[in-house]
């Protein structure tokens, strides 16, 4: 009888982590779409258009990056769009009333953050499932915004403020810088801080996370507040980019943000996903829209194509994940 030691099972070393492989596939997909578009339309590959795509993707990305953290904890925030609308309207009013963009920006971020915090409180203290809590919040926020705006439009903001959304620095649009900065911060936060690790652990098994000594409620509050604050940031970009705000701007922002998170490979069951993936998700969505505009495809086809892409992306993700294991 030979002695079989446990060491016989040698740990296989792969040089790339699972997440890295997934991101690689996703990047490949985005590049593929680019290649197709470049063939079909000569105006696609211009620097102007690429910057254009990046700038358009930035708004979705800001909302979706905060949302990614929420989804990582196996939650969902359906109120992000409505939050953008309310924050934009309040921030806009503050700028009009005080003439101070700085004050407006702070108010916008604070308003978004407070809404996020309230979501967090509903999820943690009142123990309402996030899907429902934030759906309720969506209606409350819409009601508030409608009441506050009473069908008016806010418009006309100081030129300095408008630079944030529309300005350029060394030939690059400022939102693109912001996008890179928040992509970096988000990735560092999720992968390289212990808070990030705790968020992943909570998403994977909240009960075990709590019994492992993670302050689950506090981390969830943080995550929802961050998501809200990112919606606040998006509202500022929106304001300064469009030079105006009205009550209905949020509606069309929520589903694309969720779609970006999902296309980016973050699992709704929590514990799996990356902020960088979400960035690529936002990019893919924007590319598709951009391509359809460039190719003058009827907008009737837009929801259909987006739907197919969401399913395809997630399906391919699962396929490659399974094979990679």
């Amino acid at each position, binding site marked *: *009888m030979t*002695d*079989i030691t*446990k060491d*016989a*099972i*040698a*740990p*296989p*070393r*792969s040089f790339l*982590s699972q997440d890295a492989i997934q991101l690689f596939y996703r990047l490949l997909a985005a590049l593929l779409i680019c290649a197709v578009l470049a063939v079909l339309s000569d105006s696609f590959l211009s620097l102007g258009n690429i910057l254009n795509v990046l700038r358009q993707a930035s708004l979705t990305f800001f909302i979706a990056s905060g949302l990614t953290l929420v989804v990582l904890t196996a939650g969902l925030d359906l109120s992000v769009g409505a939050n953008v609308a309310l924050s934009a309207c309040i921030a806009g009013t503050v700028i009009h009333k005080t003439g101070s963009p700085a004050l407006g920006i702070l108010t916008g971020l604070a308003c978004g953050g407070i809404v996020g915090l309230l979501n967090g409180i509903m999820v943690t203290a009142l123990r309402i499932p996030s899907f429902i809590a934030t759906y309720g919040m969506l209606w409350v926020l819409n009601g508030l915004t409608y009441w506050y705006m009473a069908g008016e439009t806010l418009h006309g903001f100081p030129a300095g403020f408008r630079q944030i959304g529309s300005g350029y620095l060394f030939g690059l649009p400022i939102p693109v810088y912001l996008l890179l900065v928040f992509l970096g911060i988000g990735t560092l936060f999720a*992968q*390289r*801080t*212990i*808070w*990030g*690790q*705790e968020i*992943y*652990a909570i998403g*994977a*098994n909240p*009960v*075990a*996370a*709590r*019994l*492992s*000594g*993670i*302050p689950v*409620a506090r981390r969830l509050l943080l995550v929802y507040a961050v998501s809200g604050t990112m919606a606040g940031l998006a509202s500022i970009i929106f304001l300064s980019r469009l030079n105006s705000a009205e009550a209905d701007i949020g509606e069309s922002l929520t589903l694309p943000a969720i779609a970006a998170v999902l296309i980016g490979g973050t699992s709704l069951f929590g*514990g*799996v996903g990356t902020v960088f993936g979400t960035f690529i998700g936002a990019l893919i969505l924007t590319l598709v829209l951009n391509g359809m505009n460039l190719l003058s495809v009827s907008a009737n086809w837009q929801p259909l194509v987006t739907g197919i892409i969401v399913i395809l992306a997630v399906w391919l993700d699962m396929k490659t994940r399974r094979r990679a*294991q």
Partner: protein
Amino acid sequence: MSDALPIEATTPTPLLELRGISKEFPGVKALDDVSFAVYPGEVHMLLGENGAGKSSLMKVLCGAYHADAGEFYHNGEKVAISSTADAQKLGIAVIFQEFSLVPYLDIAQNIFLGREPKGRIPGTIDRRKILADARRVLGTIGFDIDPSTTVDKLGVAQQQMVEIAKAISQNARILVMDEPTAALSDRETELLFALIARLKADGVSIVYISHRMAEVFALGDRITVLRDGRRIDGVRPADVTPDQLVRMMVGRNVDMTYPRNFADKPGEILLEVKGLTASTGISDINIEVRRGEIVGLCGLVGSGRSEVARAIFGADPVTSGEIIFDGKAIAGEPDLATRRGIALIPESRKSEGLALLRSVSDNLVVSALRKLFPSGLFDQRGAQRTSDSLIRQLRIATPSARQTVGLLSGGNQQKVVIGKWLAAGSKLFIFDEPTRGIDIGAKSEIFALIDRLVAEGAAALMISSEQVEICHVCDRAYVMREGRIAGHLTRNELTEENIVRLGMHHA
């Protein structure tokens, strides 16, 4: 030792025979050319360390897993078992290690899932018949409960009984039981043993997986030992001693009396619980644990031991009383207790102990993040280093620290749960059934580990339903009854009889 197998000469054809079964999972060869035969009317014990491949073999047997290679023979005829339905047709029923019950269906519906008696209208269920049938089956195993109770209201032990009823109701010729007593109390275990005797008399074959030596010798007619996915040997209980069996299982000698140096002079008080009462059903609990001690907490299932553990750890709210740890009162959530140095190894590793989809490494460092990375910046390489050393220290059988923890065998999962608190450097370890479902080798390793921890100035509070273990390793013990401390036993008084006497219900 792998020569003579006398029993196979006396009974000509096995009822079911598996030949040359192999099964590989990514990174793990779970079964490697295993042959296995079940004869009519025998109780066949299947032994092996955690991860040896016992459950996998049984899943192959019942069609839940597809073997990569191998053949099946039923009464000498070659058959194919490619689905659970095939296995059922051959009269194979399984009581799984993981429950296969549906929480919001009642007991009757669970027992007859997929085999519901048909009602008059096509597609409907004959409600009266299903309840009557369920009552009858429950009666045969001596489990007295209303079959229209939904399963979500049942405790672990009760669920195990339903699981047994479900398997029995299939009138199987071969009944596989994967660690059926791991969650049962003594009384239920007795019922189960009586049932096994009756089934055996009826000619039913039983394959029984257990880590409890006593059961092996009390029940078994024949023993097959697996190690690292290979069949090591087949023997009769009469022909081996427990020590020989253990040697076959783990490939080395293990002392099952778990020798340790009992603390003559225990250190200062580490944990003091005064008049603890919680809405979960415990009241007026007074406990004291000193550094260097292992203190047992025993009692019957349902006596409230887990609740005491959870309340001390802050997992359940406390209504009154005081918990003083290391000289300071604590009251709050588990994160506070963790930071102060308390560790809880919970009852259910799957639902409370692990993030099953994350890696071994992620799970091992999760409680120690703050300690390992005081700057708040996480570093994958550092985490990997820590977990590699824990994997070595605890002999966790895993292809790598990157393996998904849910794919490890039960015992190795348990080691990961313990490992995360080693990483956190806790001072007080509260173990709730730490050896449930753990093999003998691992068990002695875990006890040695606990011994080393307390020798270095930590302390342990240990809940276990296996009184032998409590008697072997604890310095002293509290006995619980109906949510209260019924008594205290010093090292000299610590015997199984005393524990049972104090823990029994009077009246």
